């Protein structure tokens, strides 16, 4: 790569904001936002075609001095763990623009600016190779998300937005102190590779693990810290929910992979069982709570808690299978839950209700919609042939390699998952047509079909050809495991 592709992909959306500022015409604003997200997507494609899957080293590295007096660099680069998330982000951002086409009718310019700023922050997080830079992107994401929920959300949006910010902030400030301690212990640098190459004293590892855990566990969210998620998901506009489910939650799990595992390997191994127990608790508890929900969006939000439990279960299995499954499941959850939230958004635009008791009999009125909704429901359940099956299978086999007693209850989570999705399907799609919404229903339009098609393709592509996404991450994961065992400590300087 001759040109700084990562910086280009990261800051192209923000450049789009500058183009949006002078505009007044709403549909022009929408098209410009679409153009910039599409452009970002196409610019991000060479990253995949040129990615070298045979090495664990960081690729496309760019490094410039930023604050030389304290050794902060602007350093970007990606490896097998982060590469897929960039594609996920750029695809979902395009879909976010499309899904908001009709739904957002006031303060349109501001809305799309926020979406574009979010995209920059999200891509930046996955590319950052300097802890300070990472933290800036991590926190900067709060502001647009806060405004997205608070301005364009539904009735209880203020509570949800403030709760979201306070929860996330409380976690991330502890991480900040962790980062600063790391800086002094690691020889006054924020460079992630250098910091990963040091074996820290075990007491420090515990403290660091805790500090990072506070930030990442809130973001994932892991079991006792998940309460912000249903509120934020439910109140956010559809695009906000898609971004939240699709990318934001992944950032927490990505943090575990990028920082907690390689920097505190001994503490992670010691704390592996409690972490797995928390994950299984999230799976089972999340599934039970999901069963009880009467609000369409809230139901899917709680199912995210359960699904993200699989991700952390896979990650904290600390073996190749589990880690691969965890990362794949992150991608899968982003695709599937994003798709389901888009479906909810599509139907909500027509009915303006999220209460499940108002729904029923969609199959008889909107068959095309139901076709796609069925595909996404089955993918969420984890039917063989869809992507989630592969992810959950890998996670479970990884977890079973460690401890049957911990992994077995997760099976219960899958069963409950089937139960709530099928029951939801029954209540929404089957039954008699509900008269309260009957008059408002009409089937999907071309724009709406176009925006779900890519996700359908991805679901079946990963479901049938899982070796392609897995091949991106294999080498990096193997290196990560070696690194945790105190093996190779080599990186790209």
């Amino acid at each position: 790569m001759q040109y700084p592709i990562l910086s280009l992909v990261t800051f192209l959306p923000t450049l789009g904001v500058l183009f949006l500022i002078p505009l007044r015409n709403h549909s022009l604003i929408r098209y410009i936002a679409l153009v910039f997200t599409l452009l970002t997507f196409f610019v991000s494609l060479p990253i995949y075609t040129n990615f070298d899957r045979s090495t664990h080293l960081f690729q496309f590295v760019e490094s410039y001095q930023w604050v030389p007096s304290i050794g902060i660099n602007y350093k970007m680069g990606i490896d097998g763990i982060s590469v897929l998330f960039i594609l996920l982000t750029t695809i979902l951002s395009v879909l976010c623009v499309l899904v908001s086409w009709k739904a957002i009718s006031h303060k349109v310019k501001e809305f799309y600016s926020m979406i574009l700023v979010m995209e920059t922050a999200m891509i930046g997080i996955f590319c950052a190779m300097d802890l300070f830079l990472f933290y800036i992107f991590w926190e900067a994401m709060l502001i647009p998300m806060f405004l997205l929920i608070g301005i364009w959300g539904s009735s209880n949006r203020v509570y949800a937005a403030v709760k979201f910010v306070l929860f996330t902030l409380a976690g991330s400030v502890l991480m900040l102190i962790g980062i600063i301690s790391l800086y002094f212990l690691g020889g006054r640098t924020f460079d992630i590779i250098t910091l990963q190459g040091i074996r820290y004293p075990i007491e420090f590892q515990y403290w660091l693990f805790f500090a990072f855990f506070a930030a990442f566990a809130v973001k994932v969210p892991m079991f006792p810290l998940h309460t912000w998620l249903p509120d934020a998901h439910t109140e956010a506009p559809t695009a906000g929910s898609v971004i939240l489910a699709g990318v934001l939650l992944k950032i927490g799990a990505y943090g575990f992979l990028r920082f907690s595992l390689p920097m505190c390997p001994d503490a992670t191994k010691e704390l592996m069982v409690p972490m797995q127990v928390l994950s299984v608790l999230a799976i089972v508890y999340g599934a039970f709570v999901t069963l009880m929900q009467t609000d369409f969006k809230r139901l899917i939000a709680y199912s995210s808690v359960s699904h993200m439990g699989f991700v952390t279960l896979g990650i904290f299995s600390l073996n190749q299978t589990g880690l691969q499954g965890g990362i794949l499941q992150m991608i899968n959850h982003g695709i599937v839950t994003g798709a389901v939230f888009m479906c909810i958004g599509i139907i909500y635009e027509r009915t303006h209700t999220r209460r499940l008791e108002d729904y029923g009999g969609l199959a008889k009125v909107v068959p095309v919609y139901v076709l796609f909704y069925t595909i996404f429901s089955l993918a969420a359940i984890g039917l063989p042939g869809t992507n989630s099956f592969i992810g959950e299978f890998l996670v479970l086999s990884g977890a079973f390699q460690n401890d049957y007693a911990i992994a077995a209850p997760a099976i219960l989570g899958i069963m409950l998952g089937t139960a709530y999705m099928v029951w939801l399907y029954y209540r929404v799609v089957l039954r008699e047509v509900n008269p309260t919404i009957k008059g408002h229903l009409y089937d999907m339009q071309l724009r709406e079909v176009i925006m779900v098609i890519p996700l359908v393709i991805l679901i079946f592509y990963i479901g049938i050809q899982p070796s392609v996404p897995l091949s991106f991450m294999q080498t990096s994961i193997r290196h990560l495991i070696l690194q945790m065992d105190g093996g190779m400590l080599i990186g790209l300087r």
Partner: protein
Amino acid sequence: MSAYPIIPEIVFSTTIVIYFCLGLFIKNRNYLTVLGVCSSLLTTVMIFSSPMGSLFGGMFVSDALSQSFKLVFHISLILSLLISLRYEAIRDEYFFDYTLLMMLSTLAMMLIASSRDLIALFLSIEFMALCMYTLTGFSRCDLRSNEAGLKYYILGTLASVTLLFGITAIYGITGTTDIKAIGAIFYNNSGEPNPYQYVGVLAILIALAFKAGAAPFHQWSPDAYEGAPTTVTAFMSVGPKAAVLGAMGTVFYVAFKADPEVWVNALIFIAIATMAIGNIMALRQENIKRLLAYSSIAHAGYMMLGILAGSLEGLQSVLIYMMIYAFMNLGAFAIVLSIKDGEHLRGYTGLWHTNPYTAIGMLILLFSLAGIPPFAGFIAKFKVFMAAVHAGYTWVAVVGVLFSVLSAYYYLKIVVRMFFVTEQLGIRPVAVSANLSIAIILTVFFVCLIGIAPSVLL
């Protein structure tokens, strides 16, 4: 020995005298403000073109740190003059007196930053405090302003006496008031600290904490901040606070560093209490002036972490914090002044729909005050916490960041009012006067610039 290091002070005093003479004839607010800003700019140029060095037997020292502190004072003076220009609570006939007092107190702050002798320090602090008492009670017909001025004066005198008492005790032990000499004497004294040393050091600590409005000696400050004219509140929350915290940092770093066990625990207590009380009391405020007053108490608490570090790095972090805080806080006050009913939370309802640019400016300043990147406030907090962690006070830094999460709540409360509340209370767009626009644009610009390119400061 040459007189060069003190040139900025001499230039500033001279311009103040000229200003005093001209002010007898000029009553136009615009001219007076321009004159004040010009003399401040001239002094700023002199600060950085004069050589460093020490004078009067080490009583007056001009070094990189004191120069930068002087820059902060002048930034806050210029911004305060700008936002005062059209402020109606300062009536035309008193505007000259008002600006003069501000300039005099800035001169006093410059002397504080350069004093390396306890007596000189005491005199400079008193000089500054007298100006501030008068400014607080400046609205003569306003009962609250009178009360605030009187309260500030009486309690402030108590603090001055305490400071003098502490200086006496230290003089009794060391036989000198020269800060550097005191440091050397304590450094060479290998035995247990003298009990009178505790008395002296703690009395000085308490007195300075009092002047900085730190808890548990903060009771005067919310009343003084609320009662004083808003522009004075803005000025008071930055300049004098910077001067006192700078003095505190210098005294403890240079003079008392040898026996940290004497004061470290007390300072940790004061810092944590300050952060706790400032943030917790701000949570429930509906009056923005009072909210910003409590938040400025909280910010003093964060800055004390830098002093706690007891290192040059710590002192620099206090300085950087103060400089960034000057922009954030004066910008926020400029917006408070520009809004009709800006002193109350209800004045901000739906501001985004009526005055979008003001609202976005306030949004940036508030997120910066809360310490969320990519704005300057984050850099300030980052440096201070970094100094504290480096000095080994990680747990104090953890307490500090947790309180900063609490602070996000009350800043967000204003953002929620401005952006999320849609029912209009019949407010019309307010035309923001040119001087306030300049102040807002300047502060927001610097808050963004420092946030994105921190290397301009670090």
